[in-house]
């Protein structure tokens, strides 16, 4: 009995060991959308995390810049160290609140600008500034700065300060002779040139409630794109500047669910411009490679005369290449941007907005097999595009001439990339530009 049991177990174990049955085609078509949907939140979460990090960094930088500038603007009052000491001895017992002040110490021979018990007689009659000797430059041999504390009573004394009468003041302009007026006048660098680059995330969603719109939106995913170039800016006034230049932007997206096969050329009996059209949010893809056969098993985005009842790629033994197409297109951009500096600190904050004129310079549709790209065709794209952009720029001055720029920018395209049989697409992109600028 045991042997027979073992035999029957072995019979099934060995008999079914390497057995294979091809599953129906629709199984994969049901799996992929679920897997992709579950991946999307991850992408969204990553984007949200990136935005959160950028905002946090911006906020911290702003706070830091703000604190630095605030602390440097603390008011200080110049008082003589010695006078403070004598005042402390006389009346500071029990004082617990004090105001920071700055004193000028001049060796042992000091002149207080505060009324002092011992100086009160001399201070009381002050009225003629010319008779008062206020020539600090003449006696700067042993000057040193110091910060001391002044008490609230002393502030009252300062408020009650009366002009000195018996002190002769002789202005000394010798020290000023070497200072050129031109040097002291702040020189404004109105022009600047900047080199900027950014990875951009591009999205184009089709509106509409019909099945085609849903099909398109669920099957297209953006590829990470990039943008970069040179720009010139002219400072109109302290806060406002205008900027233009030349940028190169490369964008693209992956269109899923379109199976491509190689080896179709012998079966192509037509002499038309293209055998297949694929409807996408960016416009219609037109094939120009006659060796490629396209098939949309899960939808009806592919328009062709070689429909399934006319030609079956499986029966013709065409080689399967891939199930997605890659749309790539590049534009030369000429932006006209206004930037308004709303915080002018160690790190400047700018509000950026404007329009860009885009000229199409590259347009290709490819499919990938074993890491190699094969050209399939082109997309019917508009030659000219206009986009609006809005962003926030952070500018950190490295020196008087150089500064680092960091600009998260949102861009919305005012016209669609291409026409797609009545479907309306609203492309937009988000990029974080960073670069270096030089003022002159």
């Amino acid at each position, binding site marked *: 009995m045991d042997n027979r049991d073992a035999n029957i177990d072995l019979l*099934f174990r060995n008999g079914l060991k390497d057995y294979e049955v091809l599953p129906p085609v629709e199984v994969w078509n049901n799996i992929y959308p679920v897997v992709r949907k579950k991946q999307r939140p991850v992408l969204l979460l990553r984007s949200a995390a990136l935005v959160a990090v950028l905002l946090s960094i911006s906020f911290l930088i702003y706070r830091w810049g703000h604190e630095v500038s605030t602390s440097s603007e603390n008011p200080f009052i110049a008082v003589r160290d010695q006078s403070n000491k004598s005042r402390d001895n006389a009346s500071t017992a029990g004082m617990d609140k004090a105001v920071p002040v700055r004193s000028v110490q001049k060796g042992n021979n000091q002149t207080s600008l505060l009324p002092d018990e011992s100086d009160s007689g001399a201070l009381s009659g002050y009225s003629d500034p010319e008779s008062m000797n206020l020539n600090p430059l003449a006696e700067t041999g042993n000057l040193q700065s110091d910060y001391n504390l002044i008490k609230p009573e002393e502030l009252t004394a300062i408020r009650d300060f009366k002009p000195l009468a018996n002190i002769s003041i002789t202005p000394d302009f010798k020290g000023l002779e070497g200072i050129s007026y031109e040097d002291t006048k702040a020189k404004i660098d109105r022009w600047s040139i900047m080199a900027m680059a950014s990875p951009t995330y591009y999205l184009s969603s089709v509106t509409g409630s019909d099945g085609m719109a849903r099909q398109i939106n669920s099957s297209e995913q953006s590829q990470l794109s990039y943008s970069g170039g040179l720009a010139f800016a002219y400072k109109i006034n302290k806060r406002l500047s205008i900027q233009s230049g030349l940028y190169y932007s490369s964008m693209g997206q992956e269109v899923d669910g379109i199976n491509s096969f190689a080896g179709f050329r012998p079966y192509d009996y037509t002499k038309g411009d293209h055998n297949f059209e694929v409807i996408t949010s960016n416009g219609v893809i037109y094939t120009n490679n006659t060796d490629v056969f396209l098939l949309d098993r899960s939808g009806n985005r592919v328009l062709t005369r070689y429909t399934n009842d006319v030609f079956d790629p499986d029966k013709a033994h065409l080689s399967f290449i891939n199930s997605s197409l890659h749309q790539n297109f590049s534009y030369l951009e000429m932006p006209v941007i206004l930037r308004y500096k709303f915080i002018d600190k160690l790190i400047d904050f700018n509000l950026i907005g404007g329009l860009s004129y885009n000229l199409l310079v590259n347009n290709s549709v490819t499919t990938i097999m074993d890491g190699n790209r094969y050209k399939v065709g082109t997309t019917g794209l508009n030659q000219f595009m206009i986009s609006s952009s809005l962003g926030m720029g952070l500018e950190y001055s490295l020196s008087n001439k150089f500064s680092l720029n960091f600009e998260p920018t949102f861009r919305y395209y005012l016209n669609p990339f291409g026409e797609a049989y009545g479907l309306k697409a609203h492309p937009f992109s988000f990029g974080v530009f960073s670069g270096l600028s030089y003022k002159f």
Partner: protein
Amino acid sequence: MPEIKNIIKGCLAGSRRDQELLYRRHAAKLYAVCLQYSGNDDEARDILQDGFIKIFENLIHYKHEGSFEGWMRRIVVNTALEKYRSKHNLHRVDDIDLIPEQDADPETEDYAGLEAVDLLDIIRELPPKYRMVFNLFAIEGYSHKEISQMFNISEGTSKSNLSRARIILQKKVNLYTRLNKNVVSG
């Protein structure tokens, strides 16, 4: 042909091409497993579909230790178990001694002519509870203790179900073999 490590890497990066490549490479073998655990094709399709979704979701946890195919097979088998548990309950069988041992026919123990497709048909004709226990014990190599924990039944019930499954299978195998012999001789 890309290595499985690269395909897994691509899948983890969200590459549709690699996901499809992984599916195409292993779907046929795993679908046979699904058929083995299910009574009808619809159920098998559901198991394969849910199993692959779990495979893609859990790829990040795969440690590259042991056979990747074995790892995927375990996921698919677990999916089949979950499906089964949601639909059926294994019942305790206490009357194993009542089953006559002579049901098995010794003269037809030469199983010549039986193909994998026949074996699959035979196993799928089993009542679900017997099919599950037989698959887990005889094909996957689980012990009765493990099976009893999987279904929250006693080890005795697991053993009873296995015995019944074996008897039914033996009968069917004999029948198939006899039919095959008749076809050949006829």
